[in-house]
């Protein structure tokens, strides 16, 4: 595909921003100023001020001398950077690859995008008129290379669109400034009388390199398309993305559902064709007030089922605030996995962990976003009770070691052992009675001790001697003594679990 790039130049970015925020400033000449070596220097001037001879780099006192009514506002360069970034994000509706070009421009990779607006001219007019309506003074150009687009946007006089192969001609009459060169190189060229790019374009490369360095040749080759130039996109483009611009702004849940279903059908068709399924998906809604709202879902196994993904999104559609209306829907699938083909069961068996219904149910439960957690436990190679199980990573993970039931283990295990008071004969007999939460249990039957050593390579502390005991009412408990007798610790006995 032929590569096409667009460059947008905001001629008065910082002053436009002020004028948008304070409309009364549109009628008066004003400048933005920053302190440089103790003097206030003009960093940007609006059109009215510029027409009266004020330009960037001038000292504010000088400007005020011949233009006494000049308004001076402190410049905040950080805000301009933020504004440029947000404008770049807004431009994502026109192409997925948008790069910021500081201090006052944007670069767009529009390869294969313009036909959606019925041609490059309409595409360019749409962007420029929308930005102008918002109050920004912009120039824009479309060219086969980044360098040419940049140059034509700023210095071009003939027309904003450069066709493929026309780079050389377009650049010919532009000043060397149009090549994005360092200021020292520019000054040297100026001294040598090279006023247009055309004047040195035909010179031998070696001569140019010797006098002006590699930078010039690189920029020239990039502008002419002899060397590739890459943009750093503001947002990395996920490989599985579907976009749906809407003719009229959409404001209703029903409209969002229709758009979502349409996007899902195209995406899922593509996914299932490639034998893949998605694990996460994000629906981004670009509103006409320039903001983007998004909702996301995750699935516990790769899926390409439209109805399932739609149901997950349906739980969250109410979170979208359409405000004045949504003009573009983008569906992204950042996480993609290979899908296991589902085999028809030959005979009816009990549904297992691999059943799609279970996965879809768990997605629904976790997808509601109410703090629901799903766990499945596998045995772990530890004797210490708290560490004898670990959460499984996925639904399909198999236990690495078999479950054991050779030792008594309680059905309910307290999260942290609770201290109890006991009467126990020494050295290591089970207690005769214990008091737990104010109630005295006299022990009738007991098993133990089962000594479980602490794993010194994991943590330090005392070992535990566990007893499985049954009281006079037939209630069964798991209690333990921490460490040996002898040291003067008051609390040594704990209740850790309840047996069935």
């Amino acid at each position, binding site marked *: 595909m032929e590569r096409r790039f667009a460059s947008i130049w905001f001629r008065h970015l910082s002053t436009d921003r002020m004028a948008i925020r304070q409309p009364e400033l549109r009628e008066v000449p004003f400048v933005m100023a920053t302190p440089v070596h103790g003097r206030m220097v003009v960093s940007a001037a609006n059109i009215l001020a510029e027409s009266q001879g004020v330009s960037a780099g001038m000292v504010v006192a000088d400007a005020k001398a011949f233009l006494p009514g000049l308004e001076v506002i402190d410049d905040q360069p950080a805000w301009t950077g933020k504004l440029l970034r947000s404008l770049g994000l807004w431009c994502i509706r026109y192409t997925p690859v948008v790069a910021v070009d500081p201090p006052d421009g944007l670069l767009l990779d529009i390869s294969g995008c313009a036909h959606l607006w019925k041609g490059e001219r309409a595409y360019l007019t749409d962007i420029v008129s929308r930005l102008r309506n918002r109050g920004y003074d912009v120039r824009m150009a479309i060219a086969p290379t980044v360098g040419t687009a940049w140059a034509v946007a700023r210095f071009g006089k003939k027309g904003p669109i450069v066709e493929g192969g026309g780079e050389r001609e377009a650049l010919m009459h532009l000043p060397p400034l149009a090549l994005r060169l360092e200021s020292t190189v520019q000054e040297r060229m100026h001294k040598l009388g090279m006023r247009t790019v055309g004047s040195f374009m035909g010179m031998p490369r070696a001569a140019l390199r010797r006098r002006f360095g590699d930078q010039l040749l690189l920029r020239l080759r990039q502008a002419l398309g002899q060397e590739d130039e890459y943009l750093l996109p503001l947002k990395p483009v996920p490989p599985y993305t579907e976009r749906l611009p809407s003719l009229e702004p959409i404001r209703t849940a029903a409209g969002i559902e229709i758009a979502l279903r349409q996007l899902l059908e195209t995406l899922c068709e593509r996914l299932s064709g490639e034998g893949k399924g998605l694990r996460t998906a994000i629906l981004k809604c670009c509103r006409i007030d320039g903001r983007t709202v998004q909702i996301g879902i995750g699935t516990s196994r790769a899926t390409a089922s439209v109805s399932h993904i739609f149901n997950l999104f349906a739980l969250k559609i109410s979170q979208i605030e359409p405000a004045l209306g949504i003009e573009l829907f983008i569906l992204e699938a950042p996480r993609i996995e290979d899908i296991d083909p589902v085999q028809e069961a030959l005979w*009816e*068996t*009990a*549904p*297992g*962990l691999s*059943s*799609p*219904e*279970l996965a*879809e*149910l*768990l997605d*629904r*439960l976790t997808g509601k976003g*109410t*703090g*629901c*957690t*799903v*766990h*499945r*436990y*596998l*045995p772990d190679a530890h004797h210490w*009770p708290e560490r*004898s*199980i670990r959460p*499984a990573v996925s*639904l399909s993970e*198999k*236990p690495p070691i078999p*479950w*054991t*039931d050779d030792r*008594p*283990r*309680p*059905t*309910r*295990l*307290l*999260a942290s052992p609770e201290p109890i008071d006991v009467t126990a004969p020494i050295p290591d007999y089970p207690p005769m009675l214990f008091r737990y939460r104010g109630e005295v249990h006299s022990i*009738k*039957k*007991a*098993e133990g001790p089962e000594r479980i050593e602490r794993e010194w390579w994991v943590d330090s502390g005392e070992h535990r001697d566990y007893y*499985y*005991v*049954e009281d006079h*009412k*037939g*209630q*069964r408990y798991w209690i333990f003594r921490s460490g040996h007798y002898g040291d003067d610790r008051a609390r040594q006995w704990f209740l850790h*679990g*309840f*047996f*069935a």
Partner: protein
Amino acid sequence: MAVDSKRELIDKLRQDILRMQGFAPPESRAAGGIGLGPVENAFPNGIFPRGTVHEFISTSREQGAATCGFIEGLLSRLMDGGGVCLWIGTSTILFPPAAKSFGVEPDRIVFVTMRREREVLWATEEALKCKGLAAVVSELQEMDFAQSRRLQLAVEKSKVTGLVIRHSPRLIGSTACAARWQIRPLPSALEEGLPGVGSPQWEVELLKVRNGHTGSWQVGWSEDGFVPMAKPTLVGTQDKKWIKTG
């Protein structure tokens, strides 16, 4: 003769009513009982009803543990052949390795933890609608009639068995559940003269059974399954037999 035919007619009508109420005669796969012996006779058709909601009341932590053990015993039959069980609650106190001693593969239990009780009910209802499960266990405190009715309606379509454990409920009103159980721990069974603690024993009480009769039995657990004692320790009186309690 006339009396006999009348009795036959009444029996037949009762069967029809049961069928209309969702107590269909068991399908071939679920033909096996649950191994509870005499306890199962308390249910209509003499079979533990699957595909309905059962309610378990526990009033102390010890009873809660006994109930969990009993339910794990039930699950070992319900999850026969690779089924999966969902265990829903506000916290996970259940210790999975113990399920192994009741014949359940602990990794086939999926634990779902919700923040509030209302969400537990919602999750339970969603889970009961899902055909891919063998059983759903849910730990709650309160459940009113309307909520239990919703759960019952969900299982009638999906034929999943729902087991609701209610820990120290403040109010035990009537619910739409097929049965209300209470499990209390009893001293373990041990052969005379042997040391240690034997296999668990419970007093299994059926407080309410829809279209069945209530009673109380002593049930133990061995490696092969439930070991019911032959005689019920407390039988519901005959005239109470057909009281509709749901």
